[in-house]
């Protein structure tokens, strides 16, 4: 191990402190340490799940939204372990840092995309993720009856909620716009309710 500043620069411990190094760090993990599959397989699998749910719930799209959210939540509870094992990033001390890790690192590793973070509320407890491209919704056109009610990629909201809950951030996550509904861009809103201080494991500061 080399000592001094050179090593500190490369380590993940400080990579959140500068934007560039977090990006370089996540690019490296995505490129060199994560197995890859064809994205179309993923897109089409998700598509078949959603269409099956629409049939099962007899086109009651509010129920489909809820079900997708619940499925995502269960994924998030588990996916966070994979994310942490892969990156070993330190705990985020502000929501700003959390938003950077989510957009530059988590989305990059699992979906190979980097949403933009914007629309911060004044007290920095609500932010938006703007998805320019969304691999889930490639090849998708919503049918007429669904275009006002269904949030096609609602599973993502559930994943974010579940994953953040496991690191003691109690959040609300919801879609506010979606290109599939004819909006300019897809936007996910994330609101931090509170930090579950009692549940932070002993020994962490």
């Amino acid at each position: 191990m080399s000592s001094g500043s050179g090593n500190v620069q490369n380590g993940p411990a400080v990579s959140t402190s500068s934007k560039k190094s977090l990006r370089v760090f996540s690019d490296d993990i995505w490129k060199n340490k994560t197995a890859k599959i064809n994205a179309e397989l993923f897109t089409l699998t998700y598509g078949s799940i959603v269409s099956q749910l629409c049939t099962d719930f007899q086109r009651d799209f509010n129920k489909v939204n809820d079900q997708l959210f619940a499925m995502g939540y269960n994924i998030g509870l588990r996916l966070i372990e994979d994310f942490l094992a892969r990156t070993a990033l330190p705990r985020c001390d502000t929501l700003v840092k959390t938003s950077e890790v989510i957009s530059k690192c988590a989305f990059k590793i699992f979906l190979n995309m980097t949403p933009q973070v914007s629309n911060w509320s004044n007290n920095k407890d609500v932010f938006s993720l703007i998805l320019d491209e969304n691999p889930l919704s490639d090849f998708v056109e919503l049918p007429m009856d669904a275009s006002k009610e269904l949030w096609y990629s609602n599973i993502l909201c559930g994943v974010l909620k579940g994953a953040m809950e496991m690191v003691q951030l109690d959040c609300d996550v919801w879609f506010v716009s979606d290109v599939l509904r004819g909006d300019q861009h897809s936007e996910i809103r994330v609101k931090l309710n509170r930090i579950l201080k009692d549940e932070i494991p002993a020994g962490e500061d």
Partner: protein
Amino acid sequence: MAIQTVLIINKSGGLVYQRDFLASSTKLSSNDYLILAGTLQGVTAIASQVTPKALQISGSNLSKAANETEYSIPYAGPLGVKDQKEDMGSFLPPDYFTDSFASWSKSGLKHVTTDQFSLFLYQSMTGMKFVAISTQSSTSNMAVSFAENFLRKAYCLYADFVMKNPFYEPEMPIRCELFDKKLTEFVQHL
């Protein structure tokens, strides 16, 4: 450093996984292991509550950079990974990670040495605890960082073969053969 036992403790202090890798190790009943896991959980919590006065005073004005370097664990090389063609789940060869990384446990129990063996404890941000008991009594920092590397890899295996198993219920005892197999191979290659 031969690993004698690996334990995994969930965030509520329950033992979810226990495995002996050496036949000769003294047999404890599964109930004893449960008690051991609960005790470790309690001792970790107590250990993080008692801090030397000097650190309590200087802790607040320690610069963050110094803090981060101090808890950074160096990468210890391809420990336990047999060769580059090995199937590594959702990870790509040559190794699960190749950077130094920060320890999540800053003031909890990390290492216990006795004259017969040493116990190492790795804690994830979600509160899972990974415990390895090695047959050597070691007090060096080197051994601790080796153990943290080994246990982070065990955490990677856990993330792959336990969390991605749809029939595994979180917080419940781990009964996943694939995880067993991978972990055993991994310990044998150490």
